[in-house]
């Protein structure tokens, strides 16, 4: 019986992984189309990212050793693992472990693995790219921490499933209405997490020859695309669960994620790239202030839970 349950869960897990990847790639394609239309041109078809991924997996590539291979596989595998704990619409694969901080730290494992892989290529451009990516992370994670604090204290729980459940019953119950400043802070932090302008210093194609991706070709670049797409799904999914009330079915969930991504793309189309130290210190000013203000409001409203 246990074997059958395990196999069912495995199949469901594969389904969720495929859903996340397909959604992420679709969002990427739609994003490119929207960016093109903003720039008054036609743009590629919506399915372009799928075609790109297929082409990448059929193309030859170079490898710099087993650390390179292991690192790049470790770049996307933990992302796929993290989705298993995320409430997607009504369905969560492993609801008893859907702790938000745990999912955030599991994303960092993907980061660490990818860093190991690209740095093992021995190219200083990748090292510069990773150093910038890490400095940016030291920027956007700080307001995100304040937001996590507010949500935990407000909902008095750390399970994403329960945070979603507390927002059921209509639009006025959503956390975006109850904690608007926190939503603003996390929206700005999301821009940094996704690596979209003005916070794409890590990739920076013209400055550092695409940074970490400099020696990646073929399937390795495909893994990078999987990491980016699944990360997109995961991060927008977390924000939807925290502030936009989850969703009763998959379509509405994906639609809400797309609304967030749409705002990200619009900002990306307009703004130029900041310098890295300006980007990091920006996160420590306005978004952090909003996050802390929200946290103070939550403390005053609800009190703390001394145990």
């Amino acid at each position, binding site marked *: 019986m246990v074997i059958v349950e395990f196999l069912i869960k495995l199949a469901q897990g594969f389904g969720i992984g495929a859903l996340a990847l397909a959604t992420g790639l679709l969002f990427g394609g739609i994003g490119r189309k929207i960016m093109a239309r903003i720039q008054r041109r036609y743009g590629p078809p919506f399915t372009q990212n799928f075609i790109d991924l297929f082409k990448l997996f059929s193309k*030859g590539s*170079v490898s710099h050793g087993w650390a390179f291979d292991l690192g790049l596989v470790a770049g996307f595998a933990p992302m796929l693992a993290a989705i298993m704990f995320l409430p997607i619409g009504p369905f969560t694969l492993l609801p008893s472990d859907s702790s938000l901080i745990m999912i955030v730290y599991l994303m960092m494992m993907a980061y660490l693995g990818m860093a190991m892989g690209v*740095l093992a290529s021995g190219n200083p451009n990748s090292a510069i790219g990773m150093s910038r990516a890490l400095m940016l992370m030291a920027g956007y994670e700080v307001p995100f921490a304040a937001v996590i604090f507010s949500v935990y204290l407000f909902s008095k729980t*750390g399970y994403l499933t329960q945070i979603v459940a507390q927002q059921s019953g209509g639009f006025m119950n959503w956390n975006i209405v109850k904690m608007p400043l926190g939503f603003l802070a996390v929206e700005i932090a999301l821009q940094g997490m996704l690596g979209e302008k003005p916070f794409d210093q890590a990739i920076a194609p013209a400055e550092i020859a695409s940074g970490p991706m400099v*020696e990646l070709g073929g*399937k390795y670049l495909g893994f990078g695309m999987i990491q980016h797409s699944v990360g997109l799904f995961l991060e927008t999914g977390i924000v939807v669960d925290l502030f936009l009330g989850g969703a009763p079915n998959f379509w509405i969930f994906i639609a809400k994620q797309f609304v967030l991504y749409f705002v990200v793309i619009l900002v990306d189309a307009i703004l130029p790239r900041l*310098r890295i*130290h300006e980007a990091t210190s920006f996160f420590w000013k306005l978004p952090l202030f909003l996050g802390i203000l929200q946290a103070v409001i939550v403390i005053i409203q609800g009190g*703390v839970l001394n145990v």
Partner: protein
Amino acid sequence: MNSLLALLIVPITGSAVAAILHRYRFVERLITFLTFCGTFLFLFGIKVGDIFTWHLDFLGKNVEMGLQITPLSIFMLYMTIAFGIVLTFYNLSERSKMKGFLLLLTLTASNWIFMSTDLISFFFAWELMGWSSILMIFGGKHEEKSRHGALYYAMMSIGGSYSMLIGIFLLSNLTGTFSIQSNVSYLMSIMSVHPWWVLGMVSLFFVAFMVKSGIFPFHTWVPYTYGEAPDGFVPYLSSVMSKYGVYGFLIFLPLTLNEHVPSVFGLAWPNYVLLWFGSVTAVVGSVLAFMQDDVKKLFAYSSFSNLGFILAAISLFTPIGLTAGLFHAFNHLLFNGAIFITVIAVISKVGTTRMSEMGGIWQKMPLTFLTFFIGIAAAAGIPPFAGFGSKWMIFQAMISHGLIFATVLLFFASIASFLYLMRAFHAIFLGQLSHKYDNLKEVSMIGKITEVFLLGALIFFGILPGFILDPIDSIVSAFGLKPLPTSGYEYINGFFSSINMVSIFIVVIIAFIFGFALFAVVAKHKKVPQEDNYTAGQIPQDWNLTPEMYQFGYDFYEPMDKELAPFLKVKIDGFFKGFGESVKYIGGAVKEIFTGNVQIYTYLAVGGLVIFVIAGWVVW
């Protein structure tokens, strides 16, 4: 023989034997290792509640001294002695400059500290530990610098000990007894009446503990000393000796359970002050770490930054805070030990501690690389390795108390730890391999066994943290608090949620299997050497491009220096240097009196006599 006494006698005899056979290096190290093993065996014979007392006639007073096993002491004893076994086993392979007999003296002192029930033996053991470690630091690689490091450490450690001595005698004068238990209860009883006095008394003790753990502002000795100490001793210094401060804090923190202490933001205000000390230490350590080029100094900053986390957690003195802090103490021992042992393995092969001169070592020392990788994954708090559970619980503790600034600071320190860990990882192990390291070899079999063991321990205690959380629960109950509920061995129960580490581990493994399957199925790759790299079309040979030139190891986070420059203007080190300069100046001025001129002395003697007669102190 009484097992408690055995824990003291065995290391002392081992130390004596090792000192006699000091000339034969390998024999000395072997004796050190065997003594640690023997002490560990005696640990199995003791259980919580064992007591051993004796009396001492001291200045006409009858002082009762004793040894006792509390849940906290058995936890600390197991932790420190087990790590000592691993370290001394590793040192069997090295031509290490660590003097084994001094390490065994430190072990004796360490066991005594954890077991003593009275302040006299506590102080004696504390001093013994301090002096033996100071002597051990003298044996570093550069004579001059290791002397400087040892003296810096000595001054701060002795300063702390003297403040503790003043505290001991002031306190025992009031209570009439030296027993730790009765002194602490006395302080608890008068806390509501004379809070400032109690705080002043406790601060005298806390200075010693803060020095030992490297808490801000007494952290300045840590990078100097770790950088200059002999390599074989540094893991013990950072993993084990910092825990003495933690033990000391835990002796006095029960004071704050008193309801009459005024509270700030829901915490008793001494706890709140300690919380800030801990958070600031965590941030200062992390931020200064990612600017370092010397690898031992970088991990020295990392070490006391983690002690800041531990102090911030235990200062809350609630079940979740205590559990988180003690759990992090254990995890810190494990991952810090793994990191330092791999780092000293690399240093011994490479011959330099500057990270900008290393690079690409992963190709030559793959097992060391893997252990270091898992070590830094644990240090960054990544599930399912050892460090995740404690960091997770610390954040839950902070959030549950509504401490927003502490949460933000500690989260920032955690992310900054990721920064410096990646810097060390890249500059040492990844990137381009210089041709001068073409003949580098992996560590010997003993080193390999140590590394595999540490690797396994990091994964094992990550997946099944219950083995550590159960003893910690008994410690929490011993302090009179209600412990957190425990489920199976694989569960970590926090305040807001609980997680099953085994299921996370299984999900990650399945994802990795899928990833490797995908890797194998799609188009094949071609292996290229490190010279075949993207160089913007330029031919490397035309430009004499050597691997050292193409490795980005120096000044890795240069943009952050600009951002953080305003915060780094305050230099605590400068404060202590200035303090030392003023003491030297005053001493120099006093020295002026002793001119050696007999005439001056006569004038002084006559003048002094006249003053004394006038004042009536001497009857003429």
